[in-house]
């Protein structure tokens, strides 16, 4: 990971542009799949504007499309976004000063903006990387999701097109970088087995939350690995 971050620091603008492109594609898929799954257009659009966290948006919609209630969808999204709490602490020094700065900057705290900021050593460049990444991604994410809803409307029978497989595949691609660490993969696999086993007996949406029991296997000796989460 170290060498990766050194490279990012050398060519931040090009890398930020690449991440914007990648997230734009994720946004297009989010808009398209949500609408194709039967949700009204405003749902993915408003979610992207006010939540602005791809992983949580995908997860909440996945729970709903699987038949889960809004409570399960919200709890899943909130557990997923809890990682933004330490991210906020990591960029505290960049958001000092006016309240306006704190309020707007906080909305832009996502995996990518924090990662690019922390890759810079100088405080000025850190700040530039954070705001550039955050603002570009906010704009591109929302445009992409909106555009995606048009593609979603054009698709008729979602099951015939295999779109129910596309959603989990997106989530897997998002979680994969985290699973490459053994101490993260273990609780995740145990949690998934628990969730699958519980599905016949619990209401939709709840088994996923039961998976969090896998967290009891996180050892006391497992140290925090600073940059392993890459969820849009």
């Amino acid at each position, binding site marked *: 990971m170290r060498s990766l971050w050194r490279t990012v620091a050398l060519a931040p603008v090009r890398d930020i542009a690449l991440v914007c492109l990648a997230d734009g594609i994720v946004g297009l898929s989010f808009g398209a799949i949500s609408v194709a799954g039967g949700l009204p257009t405003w*749902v993915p659009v408003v*979610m992207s504007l006010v*939540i*602005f966290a791809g*992983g949580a948006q995908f*997860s*909440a*919609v996945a*729970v709903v499309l*699987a038949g889960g209630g809004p409570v399960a*969808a*919200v709890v899943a*999204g*909130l557990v997923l976004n809890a*990682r*933004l*709490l*330490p991210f*906020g602490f*990591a*960029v*505290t020094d960049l*958001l000092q000063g006016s309240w306006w700065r*704190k*309020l707007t900057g*906080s909305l832009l*705290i996502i995996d990518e903006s924090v990662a690019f900021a922390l890759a810079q050593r100088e405080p000025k460049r850190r700040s530039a990387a954070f705001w550039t990444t955050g603002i570009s991604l906010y704009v591109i994410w929302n445009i992409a999701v909106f555009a995606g809803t048009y593609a979603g409307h054009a698709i008729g029978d979602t099951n015939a*097109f*295999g779109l129910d*497989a*596309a959603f*989990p*595949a*997106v*989530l*897997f691609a998002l*979680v*994969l970088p*985290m*699973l490459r660490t053994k*101490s993260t993969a273990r*609780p*995740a696999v145990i*949690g*998934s087995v*628990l*969730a699958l086993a519980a*599905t016949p*007996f619990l209401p*939709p949406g709840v*088994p*996923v*939350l039961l*998976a*969090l029991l896998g*967290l009891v296997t996180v050892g006391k000796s497992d140290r*925090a*690995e600073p940059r392993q*989460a890459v*969820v849009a």
Partner: protein
Amino acid sequence: MTVAAILVLALGTYAYRIVGPVLGGRLKLSDRVRRILLVAAAVLLLALVTTSAFTQGHGFAGWARPAGIGVGAVLAVRRAPFVLVVIAAAATTALLRLAGVP
């Protein structure tokens, strides 16, 4: 998704984000808390993948869907581009259904 659900998720997410910048240096999260929060995200995401792959309601979803997701997952592990992962997953499932696999 109801308006209320979207608002609660939005406000909760924003609350996580703003705690750090507002408290500034007055509070520090322990390494263990940070670690648990990150791992919780991974646990939840993988559980979403596996349950939505294999189950529909309370029962088995049929083989077409998990097969497609499996193809997408293998491509993702082999670091294929994101678009390819998504299209391959959907196409595999669609073709299997066309061939009569539920």
